[in-house]
């Protein structure tokens, strides 16, 4: 029998946010760069890691910060770098996070992460490890800047698994990765990883210098069907693909992967500063770890309390206050404008220098292609040498090779659907919720009666779907009852 993800116990992991987290503004997820020191030389490193920051938090400051995050309601924490384990007190930080009840994991490039180090972290309570692997050996070693790093990454996967850690692989996708995804997935499954996080490489830091590592937006036309196929294949083989926040949005696969089978889940906008916090090693706080420091540094725990920064800083609150009026370009006229808000802020703003317009979008790429068009990016400004620095790219719309340009339909920016919002007493805002058209499996606003994508009658298809669900539920109940009886029979015989 094939190992199946469905064998996992059904439970609700702590990481799952609910409406009340948004309303009460709980920073459920924290990603913390505990040091910028790193022993790899990645060509796409957004934080340009290498040496430690000049003034990284002391052990006392770091442990105090853990306590304060716990007080704010943080339920899970990912420790990153640089390389988290290059900080001498990393095990102590893990121990404190666990004593505060947070699910705790590290992300690593895995170079020189010895078995002894893994054992010490596990003893302190570490629960998960994510290993970055960006392609097969030659590509990975080239991108990560160190020969042999691919083999080390797999050795660490094996050691971590042997120590009982939850093991995931994290892959950044660029043009060269595309053809290697399938064989890479085979390797990852063979290594026993259960989760595979996929993310597009973002135009930040070293990736601006090495812009050949950036996907062209129109390449989503090839990438997304490939990912969908691998998602389904992986699901059958015990590997759950976790599409990152810059893999989107609202195309034909949104219902497939965003909720891992729960179709009521869909992309609902950048959560920076709403349910997440990013921390830099010197105590700088941002709404998301990846955002540009120059634009989103919301304060520093050395000069203000994390509580005040979280609740009141403008750079933290942008996600709670923004509306469709800050969108521009295609996104401003998009059907999904008010739920999507141009996807991942980090990805779009790093690319174009201003948030609110995101060419890395499957819905958009398909719409443009249907009119014989595509978008291409060209670097026009280098990024400064700082950590999390951004450059600038021009966005060029052109004819798809071999196609005639057809006019785009006129779309009035003032006509996009904007939901009525009701802010909670605490100031937070629950994200918008869409329905799924059961004919074309694309998301639609709940007020629709006819699907704007396929023209189907939504009530009819919803009724048909409800009947299907009822039938399936009945079958599930029957199967469970039969299996339970067989289970108890088996138990009687064994006794």
């Amino acid at each position, binding site marked *: 029998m094939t190992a199946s993800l*469905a064998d996992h116990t059904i439970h609700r992991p702590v990481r799952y946010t609910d409406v009340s987290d948004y309303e009460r503004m709980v920073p459920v997820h924290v990603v913390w760069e505990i040091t910028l020191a790193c022993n790899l030389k990645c060509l796409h490193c957004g934080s340009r890691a290498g040496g430690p920051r000049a003034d990284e938090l002391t052990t006392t400051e770091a442990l105090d910060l853990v306590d304060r995050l716990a007080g704010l309601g943080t339920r899970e924490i990912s420790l990153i770098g640089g390389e988290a384990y290059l900080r001498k007190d990393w095990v102590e930080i893990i121990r404190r996070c666990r004593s505060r009840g947070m699910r705790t994991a590290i992300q690593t490039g895995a170079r020189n992460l010895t078995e002894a180090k893994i054992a010490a972290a596990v003893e302190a309570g570490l629960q998960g*490890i994510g290993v970055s692997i960006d392609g097969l050996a030659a590509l990975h070693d080239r991108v990560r800047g160190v020969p042999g790093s691919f083999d080390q990454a797999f050795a660490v996967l094996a050691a971590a698994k042997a120590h009982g850690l939850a093991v995931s692989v994290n892959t950044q996708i660029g043009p060269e990765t595309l053809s290697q995804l399938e064989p890479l997935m085979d390797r990852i499954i063979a290594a026993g990883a259960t989760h595979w996080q996929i993310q597009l490489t973002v135009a930040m830091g070293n990736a601006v210098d090495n812009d050949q590592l950036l996907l062209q937006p129109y390449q989503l036309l090839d990438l997304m069907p490939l990912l969908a196929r691998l998602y389904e294949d992986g699901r059958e083989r015990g590997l759950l693909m976790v599409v990152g926040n810059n893999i989107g949005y609202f195309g034909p696969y949104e219902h497939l992967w965003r909720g891992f089978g*729960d179709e009521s889940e869909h992309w609902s906008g950048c*959560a920076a500063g709403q349910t997440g916090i990013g921390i830099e090693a010197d105590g700088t706080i941002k709404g998301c770890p990846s955002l540009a420091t120059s634009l989103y540094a919301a304060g520093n725990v050395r000069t203000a309390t994390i509580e005040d920064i979280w609740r009141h800083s403008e750079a933290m609150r942008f996600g709670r206050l923004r509306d469709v009026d800050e969108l521009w370009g295609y996104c401003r006229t998009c059907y999904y404008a008010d739920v999507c808000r141009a996807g991942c802020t980090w990805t779009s703003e790093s690319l174009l220098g201003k948030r609110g317009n995101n060419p890395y979008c499957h819905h958009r790429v398909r719409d443009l292609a249907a009119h014989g068009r595509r978008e291409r990016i060209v670097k026009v400004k280098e990024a400064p040498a700082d950590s999390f620095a951004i450059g600038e790219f021009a966005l060029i719309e052109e004819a798809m090779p071999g196609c005639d340009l057809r006019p785009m339909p006129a779309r009035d920016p003032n006509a996009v659907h904007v939901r009525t919002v009701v802010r909670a007493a605490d100031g937070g805002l629950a994200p918008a919720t869409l329905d799924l058209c059961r004919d074309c499996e694309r998301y639609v606003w709940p007020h629709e009666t006819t699907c704007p994508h396929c023209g189907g009658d939504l009530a009819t298809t919803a009724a048909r779907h409800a009947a299907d669900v009822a039938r399936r539920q009945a079958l599930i109940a029957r199967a469970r009852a039969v*299996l339970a009886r067989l289970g108890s029979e088996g138990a009687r015989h064994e006794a």
Partner: protein
Amino acid sequence: MTTIRPLYMVTVTDAICKGDLAEMKKLRAECEKHIADHGDIASLLSTLQVEIAKAEHGAKRK
């Protein structure tokens, strides 16, 4: 509602497949395991019925 998944949010390792499809596949796997462990009662029964019918038919002919 979806949830934040920034790059490096390693704790997603507790994410699981959800929905009817995942549940039906889990049940299918349990059924297959039962058959592997205990044999397929349904096909055993129909084979028994066929053989009984044949035997009875033969007995009547005698």
